């Protein structure tokens, strides 16, 4: 008997949804920031970040085929490790995605100001207005825009391809000397920064209940979209580094910081001189789509937690009028606006990455918990290859990146853990009695003891 939930996303739309959620700030805004940390070797940072994300994506793909419901990351970690870790992961994933969306919006503002003659001091104001607009749009509710999404992703990928090809003629090889100017430590730090560029792969898991033939399309969609994006990122970053004066990349941004529009900086030499306009238009499209998808997807975390009694019931309420989870969206929107207004842009990116690394580490642990526990309800149809080595590599890699990311983001990640524990103790613990797959492992241990087994 069918579960009467619509499953109408095939493999191609699944890949474009994931790519659409990944393409955005990671490539249009972050390369310059990474460049300041790693020099031309920032290219390697993008590849390294992708390699560290891969184990989590594989783990997630497996869990998504066992639990093809909305909720994604939060749901898997909660069911694997119980509501305490569920709370930490839910809050962490929510923060990460909202930080990332706010960063995308600031980048969007920066590109928009390249198109219209306004003072560049208005970046944050523009970002705030756009954020408010996107929140309203999400509260009112939008029709499924899978088609529009596919068109935008296709347009962006085609433009990026043309950008790379065109840039091939103006790249100056000398700009890659010295390649690893800041040493291998710099590459790791940059990888930690750009980690968030791959976070969009999460999006597939959060729409898992709408994907047809999930056993096949979820893992293929995740791996396919990540593979494509790793190649695209590496090529585009080579082009950006090869076309620009290092000084422009590292100091032309607000307050002498790294440029927020690195793809446009050297684009004047491309597309017969209209490169800046072309790139800016595409960046605005991609970043708008990313911010919108980010608000939509991040509002699912408070929603899912509320349905599991880890957050107030009201957050799962669906508005009678708009048929949208209005409260969850408004809460997400409020955080978004505060972040844009209050947090310096570079910190937004670092914190988003730090939270994401934390959550992805938990994802790897969650898979191990499920496999070890052998709970009967866990029946994935796709089994991640290379278990458990892949997960261990992902976990160690993630923690290694986390140590290189800097003091504030590290404190932020610690804050999420402490805050998550506090919220669970104050709110969730009294309202839940799940123990997750880990609970099953502990139960088994207890019943294995001679005293209790007869």
């Amino acid at each position: 008997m069918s579960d009467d939930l619509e499953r109408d996303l095939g493999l191609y739309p699944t890949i474009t949804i994931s790519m659409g959620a990944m393409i955005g700030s990671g490539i249009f805004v972050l390369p310059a920031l990474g460049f300041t940390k790693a020099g031309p070797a920032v290219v390697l940072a993008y590849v390294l970040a992708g390699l560290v994300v891969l184990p989590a994506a594989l783990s997630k793909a497996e869990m998504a085929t066992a639990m093809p419901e909305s909720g994604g990351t939060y749901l898997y970690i909660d069911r694997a490790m119980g509501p305490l870790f569920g709370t930490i992961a839910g809050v962490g994933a929510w923060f990460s995605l909202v930080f990332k969306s706010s960063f995308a919006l600031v980048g969007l503002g920066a590109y928009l100001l390249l198109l219209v003659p306004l003072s560049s001091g208005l970046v944050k104001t523009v970002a705030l207005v756009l954020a408010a607009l996107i929140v309203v749009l999400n509260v009112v509710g939008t029709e499924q825009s899978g088609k529009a999404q596919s068109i935008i992703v296709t347009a962006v990928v085609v433009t990026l391809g043309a950008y790379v090809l065109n840039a091939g003629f103006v790249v100056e090889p000398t700009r890659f000397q010295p390649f690893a100017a800041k040493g291998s430590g710099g590459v790791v730090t940059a990888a930690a920064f750009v980690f968030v560029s791959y976070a969009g792969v999460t999006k597939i898991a959060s729409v898992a209940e709408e994907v047809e033939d999930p056993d096949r399309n979820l893992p293929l969609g995740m791996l396919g979209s990540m593979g494509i994006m790793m190649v695209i990122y590496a090529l585009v970053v080579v082009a950006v580094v090869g076309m620009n004066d290092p000084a422009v990349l590292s100091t032309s941004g607000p307050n002498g910081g790294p440029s927020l529009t690195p793809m446009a900086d050297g684009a004047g030499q491309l597309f017969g001189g209209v490169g800046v306009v072309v790139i800016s238009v595409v960046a605005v499209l991609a970043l708008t789509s990313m911010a919108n998808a980010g608000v939509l997807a991040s509002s699912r975390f408070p929603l899912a937690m509320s349905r599991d009694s880890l957050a107030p019931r009201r957050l799962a309420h669906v508005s009678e009028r708009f048929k949208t989870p209005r409260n969850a969206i408004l809460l997400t929107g409020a955080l978004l606006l505060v972040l844009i207004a209050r947090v310096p842009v570079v910190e937004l990116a670092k914190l988003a990455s730090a939270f994401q690394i934390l959550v992805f580490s938990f994802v790897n642990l969650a898979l191990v918990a499920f496999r070890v526990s052998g709970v009967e309800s866990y029946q994935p149809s796709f089994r991640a290859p290379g278990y458990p080595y892949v997960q261990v590599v992902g976990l160690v890699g993630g923690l290694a990146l986390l140590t290189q990311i800097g003091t504030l983001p590290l404190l932020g990640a610690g804050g999420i853990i402490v805050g998550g524990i506090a919220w669970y103790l104050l709110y969730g613990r009294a309202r839940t009695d799940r123990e997750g797959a880990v609970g099953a492992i502990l139960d088994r241990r207890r019943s294995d003891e001679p005293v209790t087994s007869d």
Partner: protein
Amino acid sequence: MSTTHRVLVPFELPDATPIPSTIVDTLTPMAAVVLGHYGLPEQTPPSVGRDQFEADAQAELDDLAQPFRDADVPVETRLVFGKAREKTIDRVAVEEDCDVVLTPGEADGVDRLFVPLRGTENFDRILSFVADLLSGTDATVTLFHIEDESDRLSGEELLADAADRLVEAGVDTDRISRRLSAEGDVSGRIVDIGAEFDVLVLGETEPSLPRLFGLVPARVTADTDDPAFVVRNPEE
């Protein structure tokens, strides 16, 4: 009487418009599946929408199905939450083995049926459904064809053949009339002429694709004010 045809009757919830009882009465010799599609924006996961609105939606759906029970039409209900209405209708039609889909429209009575025929494709199913529909009413039927140079049979022959089938199925000859039209814009002309009638019966001539209905039925159902039965062509 054996129930040969199963008619899918989709409603867009909430606050759906009920089907007029005159239409329901024509379905007496058949079975019906009443489908409630509860439209949600992409912000709302279907399972969340279901949890909150299922009770109300099921109650509304049961009310919508009541006229069918009153008319002794065997009826089942299906309730689906989601975004893609057309795809859902198509999927449920396949799952529930429905060979006819009713698209709603205005009808005061069911006195005149309009049956445009393209060719012999899906012929048996369309005409057997029309015969069943006629057996439940006193309505007259007009068989209609727009001539096309690719026709294998002449329009006259096609319509005569169709009329013979209806007579064989027990329909009185004087309830059947035929009408031929010269070449032209197929869907536009069906909509224009169909306006003189109460109910349309459209046949899919190409095999049913993932998209709902064939090209012509899709255009006609979008443009006409009349209720229309679309007879599917489920052969793979």
